Each structure stands twice: as C-alpha cells, then as structure tokens.
C-alpha cells in the first residue's frame, strides 16, 4: 500500500489538500449561521444553481480551467433572487430555495441536451474531483477564504445577533437586511468553491454536517464555530488521503468521514448520558 509520505510528494495531492482545507473552513464556518437560522437547505439550492451556471458557462465556451470563476457571478445573483423571493409574504424561504434550485437544474438539463460535447465536463461537476484542482482554483480558494473569514470576523457581532433573533438585532440598529445579503453572497461563493471538493450533489454536506457535529459539543457560540471548522478540516484531510489510498471518489469519502464523526459524537454522548 502507498505510504502517506509518498502521497504528500505529489503536487496535485498537495493542491487538493490545501484547497480542501480552505473550502472546509469556509463552508463549516458559514454553515453554523445557516444551520441555526434553519437555512441548511440553501447550500443544496445554491449547488443546484451552480449546476445550471456551469452549464451556461461551458456553453458560452469558457475553458474548464476557469469554470469556477465564471460561474460565481451567476450563483451570487441567484442567491439574491432567493432573498428577493422570500420578501413576498406568501413565499417562505424553503419554497424560494425550491423555485430557484429547480430553475438551476432545469437550465442545466436543457443546456446539456443541446450539445453532447461538454456533457462529460458538466457531469464531472456533479460528483466533483478535488484531485484535479488547478492552480487558478487553488488561488481562488485562498482569496475566498480570506474574504469569507475576514467578513465573518468583521461582522461577527451583527451575524451573531441576527442568528439569535432577527427582530432583536433590528431593535439594536443592526442592518439585518445587509447582514442577510452578506451571508447569502458568502454562501454562494462557498457553494461554488465546494463544488470541486465534493461535487454539486454533496455541497450541502460540507455546510450542514460539521456544524451539526460541533453543536453536539458546544459550550459557546465561538467554540461552536471553531469546532465546526476543525471537524470539517479533519474530515477533508482524511477523506482526500483515504480516497487516494483506497482509490475511492474523494467527495463521497469526505462526506462519509463527516457523517462518521457525527455518529461517533452522538454515540459517545448517548453512552455518557447512560452512565450518569
């Protein structure tokens, strides 16, 4: 069996690990705010939109090397459309996500049927392949990491207040509308980034599972965020290495590691509770 030292010598593995760690950190931090605001499914919705956006970008003729960058504005616009739809009194958040994500998938399927030429490229985004991360995508991951973590630190107090209670936050003069837009735009960016790591089908796993695991162990809001990031990074590193050793798809392996951590924590809590 191939050793860890040998695996780490490969440049593409180094790129994959770096991009994976950055993406895991970004998704898991944003995921805490989304899960607590019951917006978990927004990751799924935005991932579906990413599918449509990638189809548009590939049809226009962008090189697969720049698909991630090119799809970003379309996904960000769609996230704002979700927010706009929720302002209509009779459309709830989950329904708005449903509408926009269906449109994303529908566009993807229709455009895929136009040409068989890029079907293979498009389908590769559905399942992701972090081992094919390019230098450009790694650079994008790094920029996104700086922007997202920087924004979360700068708006931390406002994000925390809005997550606890939006009305209470408003009564303190916090611009809740602005905070909601920021959170959605950052999530859109994270979803596009995560597409390469887990594939469109599993993007929401990176946003939902690490925060859920961290919530089982938390004793403060700040520790929940830190724990979520640590668990996610650990799962991504293990997922990439084991997928390489066992010749498995990286996206699926990463998600299985995340779920395994969640189950271990659930089990440990149950045993400790029974012992008391």
């Amino acid at each position, binding site marked *: 069996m191939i050793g860890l030292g040998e695996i780490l010598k490969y440049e593409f593995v180094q790129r994959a690990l770096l991009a994976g760690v950055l993406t895991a950190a970004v998704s898991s931090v944003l995921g805490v705010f989304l899960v607590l605001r019951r917006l978990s499914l927004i990751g799924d919705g935005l991932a579906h939109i990413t599918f449509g956006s990638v189809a548009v970008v590939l049809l226009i003729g962008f090189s697969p090397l720049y698909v991630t960058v090119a799809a970003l504005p379309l996904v960000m616009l769609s996230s704002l459309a979700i927010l706009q739809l929720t302002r209509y009194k009779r459309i709830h958040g989950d329904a708005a996500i449903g509408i926009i994500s269906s449109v994303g998938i529908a566009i993807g399927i229709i455009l895929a049927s136009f040409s068989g030429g890029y079907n293979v490229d498009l389908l590769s985004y559905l399942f992701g392949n972090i081992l094919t991360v390019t230098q450009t995508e790694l650079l994008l991951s790094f920029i996104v990491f700086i922007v997202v973590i920087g924004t979360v630190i700068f708006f931390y107090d406002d994000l925390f207040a809005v997550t*606890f209670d939006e*009305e*209470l936050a408003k009564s303190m003069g916090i611009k809740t509308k602005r905070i909601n837009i920021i959170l959605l735009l950052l999530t859109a960016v994270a979803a596009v980034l995560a597409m390469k790591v887990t594939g469109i089908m599993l993007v929401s796993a990176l946003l939902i599972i690490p925060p859920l695991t961290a919530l089982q162990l*938390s*004793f403060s809001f700040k520790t929940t965020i830190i724990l979520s990031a640590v668990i996610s990074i650990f799962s991504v590193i293990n997922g990439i290495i084991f997928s390489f050793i066992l010749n498995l798809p990286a996206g699926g392996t990463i998600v299985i590691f995340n779920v395994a951590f969640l189950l271990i924590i659930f089990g440990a809590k149950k045993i400790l509770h029974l012992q008391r």
Partner: protein
Amino acid sequence: MSVNLISTENLTFCFNGVDALSNISFAVKKGDYVGIVGPNGSGKSTLIKNILGILQPQKGSISLFGQPLSSFRQWNKIGYLPQKLNALNTNFPGNVEEIVQLGLRNKNAQNLEQVLNLMGIKHLSSRLIGELSYGEQQRAMLAHALVSRPELLVFDEPTTALDPETRDIFYSLTEELNRAHGTTIVLITHDIGSIGKYARNLLYLDKKVIFAGTFEDFCTSPDMTGLFGPMSQHIICHQHDALESNP
C-alpha cells in the same frame, strides 16, 4: 424643558390592508414610567416594533431622543426586552455571557459583571442559554437590555410566565431604575392590576389611542368609567387597596 425620548405623530400601520394602528400620537418624556395596556390584538407590540424600527409604518412619523427614526443611530441608549422569549431556540449554542453582550461592539467587562450580579445570574454565565429555565432566560435577556446602561428601557410583556415573587422583584427593579437612576421605562403589559402601582402614565390602546395621560387622570376620568365600568376602574386604580388598609 423635558426631552421627548419617544414621540409619534399620526402613526398608522396596516397589516394585509387592515389598520393595526391608526393615527397614534403620543410622547414619552425623559424620566417617565409609562404603561401600555390594551386587549389582545390591540397593537401594543406592533406600536413598539414600529418605534424601534422593526416594522415600517405606512403613515406618520417617529422620533427617538428628538431625532427622526431614519437618522437615529444611538441604539445603545435603548434597551429592549422582546415578548417572544418562548420561541427561543433551545439548541442555540450561545452562553449567557455571550447573549448578555449580544450585538455590542464595545464590550465592557465591568458592566457585564455588574448586570450579571444585579440579575443574580453570575453563576450561570458560562451555561448555554437553551439549558436555562424560562425565568433564568428572562433574567439573562433583562441583563442584555441593561448592559449598555440605556437611558430608555422598553419591555414587551416581561412578566408573562413569571411566578408572583419574581414578578414583584422585576417591578421593584424597574421602579428603582426609574426613581434612583432616572431611566425611562416603557412597559407593555396585560397585568393591568399591577401596572398602576408603578407607572405614572398610562397609554390605553385598541388600534387607536383610547386614553393617554397620567394614572390619576385615568382613575378620575368619567370617560374611562364609562368605558371600563366602575368596578374594573376601581380595581385597576387600586382603590380596593386603600379600602382594605382603611376599612
């Protein structure tokens, strides 16, 4: 001249085309203790939410500390305790210390310790908010309302679900804040039997202003006698207390 900390002019708020508040004009002066009362659905909470910028009125104007609401920025001068604590997410991972300082950009450790001691929850500071009893959560949220040492405190039905002893402690605290520290208090309540003991002014709402004035005026107003009946007015005004003490 006393400053109006809150003032509304012809405030009208509609919900689904129906007036929830109609032409509300009233003012709260610095140092006042105002009770806002009225039946369910009379618009008490809606009025407060309009004043604090949570809801946008269709008509009328609102001023806070003499400034139009749109240009008001000194939100740390206002402490607010909302009504719907029972909707608090019990899985929320914030601890008491974090919740008390919620939304504050300038955190002050001394202020934090003082309010935690004042509310008797210092020993709970590292506990998660969702793990506390309703009364403890209420005290944590009250500590949050007080932590920035606000000049104006707005409470929306704060005594609902509190036991009588805790309710009395709460009212005594508001009275002390008002009398000793000059903090202006606006308190929405259904506890009409108690509010008159503490509030100097009363605003009776039923989608419009039914009565706005001093508690003494309320008790001697023939209009209010006509509206409530002599017995209810008698109970609200605690004239039965006087009868009990001077039989």
